[in-house]
């Protein structure tokens, strides 16, 4: 029986609590009265994964069963989420591969010849062959990759993009030509958190910069409250408008999956337990890991964390018409992540872990850390932000991992040149976004190497726009001071110092809330 999430109030019986900070974690003794939001424990998984997938394909929502949509001579395209989901990467076999295998089995039975598989990576970096193989599985990889029918989406390949028109708000819809011209587009998603899926899958995953710029900008993101709640997110409204337009051009068969909260495999599972319930073994594992990390060189620490594979279980799989499917998916996601929190607080504390969507196998550079803390974690709310308007956010991350030149070349220039001038998302967007988006060298690296698109660091900064607009003070505990100051924030060495620094904004005895994730949670703030 899994227990729901709950809000702990720190008292004299509370042991120190785990706070993630990059490639490590610390034990923090929070002030008495601090609220700590714990995510629900893993909800029950489906008993038979293969059977659940089969059932979803044969009994889709608001749509004909998949075999009825397949016929000889048709053009079938299967698109799937890239390696930014789930986090950490799922232990093999990946759920997307298992679904794609069943879709292909049905396609083979129906005599479909023209099949292509596209990784919906939008402006993310191209995945390596090994990464593609991990997602789709060896069988699919061997059958399609050598023939060039399994590939990464290229948002800068002008010849292979199709402009489908504009929405009633004048937003361009430009997606993969192959996908747009298919008789059937099957999209296989992993709905790790509430912001994923729905019309965001095709409408964003297979879209080009021309299309993305309409919702990936500071103005839209400030109005997305939060982007974890698609009904109150301007970004999602835009994606929904685009999705409905896409629906007029191509039949989309959406397959969405939901996962449990089993993020950390053994022996790191103590990171998912409630601290006061740690057994002696958990305490010993934690001590061993902490001391190990203290002596390990940075490279080894990086390897230790990035080699973790999530032992996720499948909690649900739904297929059919995009919106009908997404509604059911969200139900499951909410069941797994939602925690009721009563009222806002003056200070919000969050630990930024080693991994975000854009540094799989890479480094968590300062811009990604900001995006993770002020973007994803800050926005993990429904209703109203966990911290009040004008409050303070305290984040934990050393901000010392540097930049990965292979994956994040444009980030370096963004950090060195753009942030040096301004840290206001709207200002930097208006002045520099176009230049970075159209830079031929970044486009070349995006298309031929494994670099994120030139405009990507701007998007990271936009994710954080709502938080920057909402709070008055952002303090990083344990961070490199110079880096924090370049980002427009301040650094403190301890939580006590951070609270002292924030006292000018929130007073000397502020109410504090700590979001105890990962595993993922979504605070339902009443």
């Amino acid at each position, binding site marked *: 029986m899994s227990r729901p999430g*709950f*809000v702990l*109030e720190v008292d004299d*019986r509370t*042991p120190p609590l785990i706070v993630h900070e990059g490639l490590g974690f610390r034990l923090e003794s929070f002030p008495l009265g601090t609220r700590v939001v714990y995510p629900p424990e893993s909800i029950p998984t489906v008993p038979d994964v293969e059977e659940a997938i089969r059932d979803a394909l044969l009994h889709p929502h608001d749509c004909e069963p998949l075999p009825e949509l397949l016929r000889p001579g048709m053009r079938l395209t299967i698109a799937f989420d890239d390696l930014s989901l789930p986090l950490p990467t799922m232990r093999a076999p990946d759920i997307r591969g298992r679904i794609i295998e069943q879709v292909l089995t049905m396609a083979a039975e129906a005599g479909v010849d023209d099949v292509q598989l596209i990784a919906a990576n939008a402006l993310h970096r191209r995945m390596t062959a090994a990464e593609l193989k991990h997602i789709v599985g060896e069988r699919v990889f061997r059958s399609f990759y050598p023939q060039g029918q399994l590939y990464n989406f290229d948002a800068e390949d002008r010849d292979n993009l199709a402009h489908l028109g504009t929405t009633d708000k004048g937003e361009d819809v430009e997606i993969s030509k192959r996908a747009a011209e298919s008789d059937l587009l099957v999209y296989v998603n992993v709905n790790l958190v509430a912001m994923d899926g729905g019309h965001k899958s095709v409408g964003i995953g297979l879209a080009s910069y021309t299309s993305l710029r309409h919702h990936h900008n500071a103005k839209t993101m400030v109005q997305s409250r939060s982007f974890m709640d698609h009904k109150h997110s301007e970004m999602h409204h835009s994606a929904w408008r685009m999705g409905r337009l896409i629906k007029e051009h191509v039949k989309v068969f959406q397959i969405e999956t939901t996962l449990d909260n089993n993020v950390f495999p053994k022996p790191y599972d103590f990171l998912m337990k409630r601290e006061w319930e740690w057994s002696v073994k958990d305490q010993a594992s934690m001590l061993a890991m*902490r*001391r190990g990390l203290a002596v390990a060189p940075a490279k080894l620490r990086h390897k230790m964390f990035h080699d973790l594979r999530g032992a996720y279980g499948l909690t649900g799989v739904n297929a059919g018409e995009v919106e009908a499917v997404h509604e059911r998916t969200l139900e499951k996601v909410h069941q797994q992540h939602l925690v009721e929190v009563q009222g806002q607080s003056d200070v919000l504390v969050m630990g930024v872990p080693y991994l975000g969507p854009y540094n799989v196998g890479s480094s968590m550079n300062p811009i990604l850390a900001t995006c993770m803390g002020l973007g994803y974690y800050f926005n993990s709310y429904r209703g109203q932000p966990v911290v009040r308007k004008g409050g303070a956010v305290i984040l934990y991350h050393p901000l010392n991992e540097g930049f990965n030149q292979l994956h994040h070349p444009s980030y370096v220039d963004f950090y060195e040149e753009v942030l040096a001038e301004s840290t206001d998302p709207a200002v930097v967007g208006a002045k520099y976004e176009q230049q970075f988006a159209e830079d031929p060298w970044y486009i070349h690296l995006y298309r031929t190497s494994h670099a994120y698109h030139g405009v990507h660091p701007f998007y990271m900064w936009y994710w954080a726009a709502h938080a920057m607009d909402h709070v008055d003070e952002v303090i990083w505990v344990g961070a490199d001071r110079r880096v924090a100051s370049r980002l427009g924030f301040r650094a403190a060495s301890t939580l006590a110092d951070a609270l002292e620094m924030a006292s000018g904004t929130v007073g000397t005895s502020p109410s504090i809330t700590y979001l105890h994730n990962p595993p993922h949670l979504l605070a339902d703030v009443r």
Partner: protein
Amino acid sequence: MSFLKETADDVRLVARGWRWGRRAQVPRSAEQWVPPARSTVFRTDWSRRRPAMAAREVAQKAGLEPLFRSQVRTRVEGLDVLERTSGPVIFVANHASHLDTPLILLSLPDAWRRRTAVAAAADYFFDTWWRAVGSSLLFNTFPIDRRGGAMAATPGEVLADGWSLVIYPEGTRSTDGWVGRFRMGAAFLAKEYGVPIVPVAHRGTFAAMPRGQGWPAPGRRQLTIRFGEPLVAGPDENVRDFAGRVKDAVAVLLDEDGTTWWEARRRAAAGSTPDATGPKVAQWRRVWEQTESPRADAPARRLHAWRS
């Protein structure tokens, strides 16, 4: 060096945070989310066999008793009732402290003590193997489930084997030293197996070592214990009435312990025995009254007349 220092700091932090050597605590706001303890079944038959009995004899006589006597003073009354009874019986006592069990066991005559087992909460004393082994070896405890559920050895089996039992019908230690609600398990067992109940009342254990304290307070506090006349359930008496009678007997004994036998008898006859559950006053006053150790009739200190 800094690595060693940080390691020591980490270990110290964990040792303090997770209360090494003490029972773990759950934050108050998380208490409602504690999963029900799984009732692990630890067998305790071995602890009632000869080798364990021998080991227990040594542990109690050579370890527990000297230690106990060095920390508290005791006054035992009413043991003569045991001379008129042949076992097994059920000793039913009020429960205010972890000192209650050693107090009762060490007050019993050796022959009785060796054949007495103590019913202990399965979720508290039997939650880990070492606690289970330790408590059953030292105190001859066997698990009973406070929440209801299957157990390895039922109290009935232990009784049927000819062992006397110590049962605290309150089910838990008192939070303020006064007697709580009596459950009916002990009365039920006595009626079911046809054994008498010996009411036992003791005072001073709460003052010496209340809940939450791990060692008796300094100064060799006084404890008093009094055994009452055995009670037998009448043929037509139901368990509820019998349990009430047992509770009244404990209350009279407590009264007697604080005053005199004669006064307590007269009050009992008049139906004005003081309520063992304590006065209906502010909680602090209830606790305050109980924090005072009972006075023994014997002088507190040895006379030093012969000291040179």
